[in-house]
């Protein structure tokens, strides 16, 4: 259930160019969040809240981790928060990745700032004994983060658009290298998600999708996405942000 919670910044760290990792203390969120869910962050002076994925959870320490890129005035402000600062958030929001899969080997596909939600999901899946392969794509070496964290979960391939690290190219460039995984889980910019869906038409896959949001809780119809089912649409904030690749029209 979504609650309005106050989280306390425990630590703030720059993990890549303009990319910040915040560890946030909050009992309720740490106990209830599922991989792929997000928090809706209030920032003083801004009209709308900002949706940010939950990238990791530590139930024992009662913390959640978020990772975000400074891409505008709001994320710039959150990046300036110091340990001890309190933030008003709604969460956990939305439906995350499916946790009940019986697959043995899964592929994580992350593009840029779409990487974070995959980490907590991968961790959870790894704990249940699944084999994890990850392909993480970044613009450039300076944007790269969490490589080691993903390596601890399993084989991890890095691609950069400019070739400054790992293979040069897009996440899709590596698809022919990979064999017999059972399903994929992708998060990243819409063009990447489109390409992934197109290249892997016969795989079971899940996509985590971004859209500009008003309420973040399903009340305002800002964040709809057309679907193949009879209702014709879903709300990304409430029904998603994770959807089966077959279900949505990108």
């Amino acid at each position, binding site marked *: 259930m979504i609650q*309005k919670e106050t989280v306390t910044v425990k630590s703030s760290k720059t993990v890549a160019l303009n990319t910040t990792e915040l560890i946030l203390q909050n009992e309720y969120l740490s106990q209830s969040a599922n991989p792929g869910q997000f928090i809706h962050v209030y920032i003083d002076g801004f*009209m709308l809240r900002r949706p940010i994925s939950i990238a990791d959870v530590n139930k024992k320490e009662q913390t959640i981790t978020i990772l975000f890129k400074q891409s505008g005035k709001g994320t710039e402000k959150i990046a300036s928060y110091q340990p001890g600062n309190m933030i008003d958030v709604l969460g956990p929001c939305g439906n995350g990745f499916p946790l009940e899969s019986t697959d043995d080997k899964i592929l994580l596909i992350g593009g840029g700032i779409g990487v974070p939600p995959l980490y907590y999901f991968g961790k959870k899946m790894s704990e249940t004994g699944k084999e994890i392969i990850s392909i993480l794509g970044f613009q450039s070496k300076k944007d790269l983060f969490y490589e080691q964290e993903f390596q601890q979960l399993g084989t991890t391939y890095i691609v950069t658009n400019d070739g400054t690290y790992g293979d040069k190219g897009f996440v899709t460039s590596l698809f022919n290298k990979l064999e017999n995984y059972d399903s994929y889980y992708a998060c990243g910019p819409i063009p990447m998600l489109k390409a992934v869906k197109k290249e892997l038409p016969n795989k079971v896959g899940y996509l985590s999708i971004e859209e500009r949001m008003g309420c973040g809780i399903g*009340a*305002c*119809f800002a964040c*709809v*996405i057309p679907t193949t089912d009879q209702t014709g649409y879903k709300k990304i904030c409430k029904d998603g942000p994770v959807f089966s690749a077959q279900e949505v029209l990108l």
Partner: protein
Amino acid sequence: MTSLAVHLPGLPLKNPIMPASGCFGFGREFSQFYDLSKLGAVIMKAATGEARYGNQTPRVAETSAGMLNAIGLQNPGVESIIQTEVPFLANYNTSIIANIAGSTISEYKMVAEKFNQTKDVHALEVNISCPNVKEGGIQFGTDPVMAAKVTEAVKEVSNLPVYVKLSPNVTDITSMASAVASAGADGLSMVNTLTGMKINLSKRKPLLANKTGGLSGPAIKPVALRMINEVKQQVNLPIIGMGGIASAEDVLEFLIAGADAVAVGTANFQNPFICSEIIDQLPVILEQYGYSSIQEVIGKGARI
């Protein structure tokens, strides 16, 4: 404790606070945060004759102290609303106001007629001011003759009190108000959103897929207050005031300016508890400013 009850014609309210149409869905999501019975009323998201998908996304954009929306009246259609949403809201001890929209006068009429047959709806709010649809909506809201025609058509088929929701995108708001008053409106809702635009600098084009959207939030509050006060001086109808309300002080400003009750829209997105918190704060604020009852505030707008 100060009673907050206000008596609008055909629509007695336990307090003057209600969520604005389109900013509260059909209440389901907010019911997880607090008991909706606390609200004076709930104004539902606009209903049209058939289900509508609305505009392409992005549908919202942030602006200074405001936001633009171009939802485009997405809704499951009047039948579905009556079957699944009204019964849900009827579980709560609050008034239900149905916001109705259409591309044609006969669509408005049909939707009004359907709600009129439902026992649980207490009033109609006729949205002649949606800036985000190609047909209907704002055309009806910027021409007094058209506005009067819609009002008459809805009144013909409805025994429920009819509030006509005015657009602020007009030169002369009082002529709009007078026109719908003459056509039989029982009250006014003021105001809907101001049409605006935001540019996506990277894409070198409007940020919203629909290009323009409706501006709401604190940014428009001064315009809303001015229009309400202007209308109150010339047209003798109760007014549900809205536009940027985010605190009990804001509510008091609207009531002094001439509103008889208020609706809270965009602020629900920033703080889902806002309506509940305002209801708690209102008696405190009334006392702070020397009022012993809400009635003392209301109805003087024409003389300030």
